[in-house]
């Protein structure tokens, strides 16, 4: 049990971040705090992918010249994959980071629009002001 918990500590850490992010998005009333939660949430998934590609004792995925020589000379049939870290999750996460930045940018644009129109970023206050506007509209 202890081994299970300690052996997967990176995943527990990711899980904790994921939950903190979700809590921030769902429970916080301030729109900017929601966005902070959203960023934490996205980062937790990025860390999850990176953690999955970790290999102890392995190195960057640039082929060693010695290895290539050996394959050419027919000494081994394939490159030893255990020596190299899998680069694919990192590449995927580069894309995900870009997507995350774009999402945050659009979200801040929306927050600025909301603040300009309603002069508040508190969700409760915002809903109250929207409702008030509705009432004054229907009275006209």
């Amino acid at each position, binding site marked *: 049990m202890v081994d299970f918990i300690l052996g997967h500590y990176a995943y527990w850490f990711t899980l904790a971040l994921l939950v903190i992010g979700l809590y921030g998005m769902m429970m916080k009333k301030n729109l900017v705090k929601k966005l902070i939660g959203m960023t934490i949430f996205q980062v937790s*998934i990025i860390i999850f992918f990176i953690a999955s590609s970790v290999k102890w004792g392995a190195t960057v995925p640039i082929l060693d010249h010695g290895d290539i020589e050996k394959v050419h000379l027919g000494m081994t049939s394939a490159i030893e994959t255990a020596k190299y870290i899998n680069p694919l999750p990192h590449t995927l996460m580069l*894309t*995900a980071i870009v*997507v995350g930045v774009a999402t945050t940018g*659009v*979200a801040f644009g*929306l927050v600025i629009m*909301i603040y300009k*129109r309603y002069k508040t970023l508190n969700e409760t206050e*915002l809903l109250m002001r929207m409702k008030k506007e509705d009432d004054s509209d229907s009275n006209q």
Partner: protein
Amino acid sequence: MTAILTNNSPVLIPLLFLTFGMIIPLVAWKRNNLAWPALMLASLASVAIGVFNVFKVINKGPVHYYLGNWVPPIGIEYVLDHLAAFVMLVINSVAFLVLIHAWKIVPRELPEKEPAYYAAISLMMAGFNGIVITGDLFNLYVFLEISSLSLYGLIAIGEKKSPVAAFRYLIMGTIAASFYLLGVGFIYITTGSLNMADVKAILPSIMDQPTALMALALMVLGMGIKMALFPLHGWLPDAYTYAPSTSSAIIAPTGTKVAAYALLRVLFFVFGVSFVTKTIPMATVLTWLAAIGIIYGSIMAIAQKELKRMLAYSSVAQVGYIGLGIGLANPLALVGAVLHVLNHAFMKACLFLVAGNFRFKLGHSNIFKLNHSIRKKMPWTMAAFTVAALSMVGLPPMAGFFSKWYLALGTLKDSNWHFLVVILISSLLNAVYFFRIIEKVYMKPINSNPAEKEMSVEPTRDEVASSMLIPTLILAAGLIVVGLLNAFIVKGILNFIIPAGM
């Protein structure tokens, strides 16, 4: 030249819209009115390529296209099969018709913002087409986010409240996409592959692992939010109501359908039919949620006083039909679901265009302010509305009847009688919320009250411009045509979409 185009036809549509997403702001830099023709060019080309793709698939069978000639699972694969070609043609042709309608209404609703607006539509269509055609799980995520980011912008550009609706959608949409991405991560860790066909070949050997189950749950949750499956539909009504008329008319027929399509792909073409029905009853859960959503959406639609909001809730119900067809997991129900993607795209586009026409001429689309004068003022718009409404209710020979017919047959196949009851009840509820408008407009004789007769002036014909009217009428006529031709569509295309093992 032609050989290059025909060989690369699967990738052309997303590429086209992606390119035009960047070209439109440039050509319209100084002159705003150039943005619309540029997008129309792209849209027309996409319809043409879509038609070509459909015939190519019917004649030669599914096409597997390797991006950059990298053979999967190393490279990204685009799969153009019957289902993908069909859905692509549907969303592109509906978008084309809505964009004709946009010409007059966008400058009125969004003055000076046309270049950015049309560029965002182009990017959104690139994302949707990419989702439909890709055969790679991570590539699907990227296209999902491309389309979502443009969607947030298209919604936020609308009325005063629209940024709030868009912000709420952004939070929900990011959770959905992130859950999907997490599911992809689980699949990648267990199978070491991201190619859909490859994953499907590997998954049966590791089916009993909790990782695979978790991946399925996360991906269904993510797509469920995107397609507004009950109870994850919270973002939809506000977003559709406060968005500009063109945005709602283009998002409602395409957005949720594409997400439903992605769900179908993930369930049947990645995890496989036996996995989602026997190993873990995910399909059954989906069916029940969809059934509750159908009833809930229809009842909420009755309670609305704003036409666009009513249509939004009706969308929740209609997406439920598609979810029901997917969840029942038998060939007839699946044909019904995919046929409903087509029918609902036409019906919702037509109804939202009618709402746009009302807003253009009357300045509002409040149901309680609609009265009998509209039948004189806008006879053609009302005719289109009536056809679409009858189709929503499911009267033959309108298209809506036939998809419901296939769904009903699908429910009977595994003796799921209770879902047949759901379909029947919801048809009646549909009738309630559409007929109250038809009754308001048509059933009252003009000036029956003599006192009123002297007070009021005879309403004169005040129909919208033909560039707005014609797309609305084409969509309405399309509903009848699709209804009459449904046997050809089912025989020619939809019979080939049934996944293995169903």
